[in-house]
């Protein structure tokens, strides 16, 4: 492969600097001794210590985690079903409406989704709390899951399912023993996507949460509205760290697996 021209080198360097410098600054200043986030006063992990003492943040984090686990799990089940229906369901009454409802939440402004769900919950007299956030998050993240899973299902060789039926599986067994294990990576990434979306969501959670169920983004938002604080920097650093480790691990694992698979295929072809 040819080497990068100076133009490409410059645009890549500047581009990635733009993407990463803000986060690096954020991380660096989380280790700042001073309360002033913009003036460096020496290295300290003081803000991490204070964060660990902050009950409000800890309980918000706990609520967020609960919501994320429940909503992403339900969303994965529903989203996978929806993907299966879209790709394999054939024709049925209201199919267009169904696919419309799958794609619309992806482009719907969060303020509208949040508002409409809140009005529903009030309308049916459902008290706002963890349950309502879970319902709201499940609804929009199942659509993301279904997009991820259906893009995998489209390329899925249908004869694999037919072979399973042919060898004596009931349709449900065929799905469990053949389809699901093969599309598992897509289902898992769908779950991860739903989980992250739920962790990150501020707007919809603000509409659908009650006083007893403040999530972490709501807490962060109300804190940063008042200005920059080193505690938030520390919290952000922890969150960025978890995501970075997760994404890098995941990409290394998949890269290794694909390299191994390719090598084995080459060996098999040569033999």
């Amino acid at each position, binding site marked *: 492969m040819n080497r990068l021209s100076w133009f490409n080198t410059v645009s890549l360097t500047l581009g990635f600097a733009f993407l990463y410098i803000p986060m690096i600054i954020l991380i660096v200043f989380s280790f700042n001794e001073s309360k002033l986030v913009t003036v460096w006063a020496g290295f300290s992990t003081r803000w991490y210590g204070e964060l660990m003492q902050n009950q409000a943040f800890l309980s918000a984090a706990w609520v967020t985690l609960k919501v994320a686990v429940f909503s992403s799990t339900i969303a994965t089940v529903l989203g996978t079903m929806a993907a299966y229906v879209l790709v394999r369901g054939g024709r049925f009454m209201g199919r267009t409406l169904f696919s419309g409802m799958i794609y619309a939440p992806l482009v719907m402004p969060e303020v509208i989704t949040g508002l409409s769900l809140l009005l529903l919950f009030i309308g049916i007299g459902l008290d706002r709390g963890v349950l309502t956030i879970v319902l709201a998050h499940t609804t929009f993240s199942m659509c993301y899951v279904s997009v991820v899973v259906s893009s995998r299902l489209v390329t899925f060789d249908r004869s*694999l399912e037919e072979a399973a039926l042919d060898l004596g599986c009931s349709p449900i067994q065929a799905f469990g023993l053949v389809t699901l294990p093969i599309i598992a990576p897509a289902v898992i990434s769908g779950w991860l996507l739903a989980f992250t979306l739920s962790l990150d969501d501020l707007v919809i959670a603000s509409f659908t949460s009650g006083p007893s169920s403040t999530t972490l983004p709501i807490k962060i938002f109300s804190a940063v509205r008042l200005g920059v604080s080193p505690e938030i920097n520390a919290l952000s650093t922890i969150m960025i760290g978890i995501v970075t480790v997760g994404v890098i691990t995941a990409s290394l694992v998949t890269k290794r697996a694909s390299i191994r698979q390719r090598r084995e295929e080459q060996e*098999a072809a040569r033999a």
Partner: protein
Amino acid sequence: MPETVFAPWSDPDARPLIRFQNVTKRFGDFTAIHDLTLDIFEREFFALLGPSGCGKTTLMRMLAGFETPTSGRIELAGKDIVPVPPNKRAVNMMFQSYALFPHLSVWDNIAFGLRRDNMAKDAIDRRVDEMLKLTRLGRFARRKPHQISGGQRQRVALARSLAKAPKLLLLDEPLGALDAKLRQDTQFELMDIQEKTGTTFVIVTHDQEEAMTVASRIAVMDQGEVIQIATPDKIYEEPESVYVADFIGDVNLIEGRASAHGEGRFRIDWAEGQQPLIAASRLEFAAGQQCHLAIRPEKIAISAERPSDADNAVQGRVHDIAYLGNLSTYHVELPTGAIVKAQTANTRRISRRDFTWEDPVWLSWTATAGVLLAN
């Protein structure tokens, strides 16, 4: 002891394993299978042959249970199987793509169907080992499908579909993904395994050579209908229609008008100013009836002089020579402008070939060499 010929289709008392009765299958406005009736007998190696889109795959998928006929009846051993779902049929299928489960080892792929029957563990072990031995895959039992070669994958697919000892095995273009050399070896292997296991095989293929090699009988299909069902030699030597004659192998088709010419013989007037051709036929043709004489290139002799004893002889000029190594096909242009192909075996080295481009030659054949076909 004289060996009895395997030909249950000519025995009026034999009961077919599979019987299609007036089966029609429509997809929306498209008719994939039109009013088809067909018998397949036990232990047969039956080939469905036709161009893509002729309905052969639909026919096979109806046997496997993936499609239900729009109307008609499909019997397996005397029972209507139309309402039976694919997983409850004693029919297994080998898929064109092999459809090996990528997340399971070769061993687990073969055991997959057996496990669905709740077979005892040691019985499964025995059966899988038997299948591995039959297909010579013992060394690869622990490998995953992506770790073995294409030919080995094909054998795993075969072993997997045979493991449940089905009454009927369906093979959908089983050799389509293999290269030419491997394909030939595998054809013989397939025949061998079919003989050993005594299973009835139905194979779908668009490759006429493959069908000719492996099949006991061939059904030639076109546009949702069976055109002719016969043994490979009958299909080749006695095609019943221009379509079959043209589809299988190379053929010269000469159009003309028939008139009786003695016992079982007909005279064909085929071109102004040319001597009529003589052909034997069991069919009856009315005087002046339009007909086609179908004659295979290898049944036409080519010579420099007019042979004295030939029933038919025409003169022409060598227009083109296709050298195929073992054979040469001469494209001879007749005075009428028509091209007739004649094939000879290259028993001598090419430098000593008798004819070359533009040479005047005589083509000759006997009255029984060709088949006379009505339109």
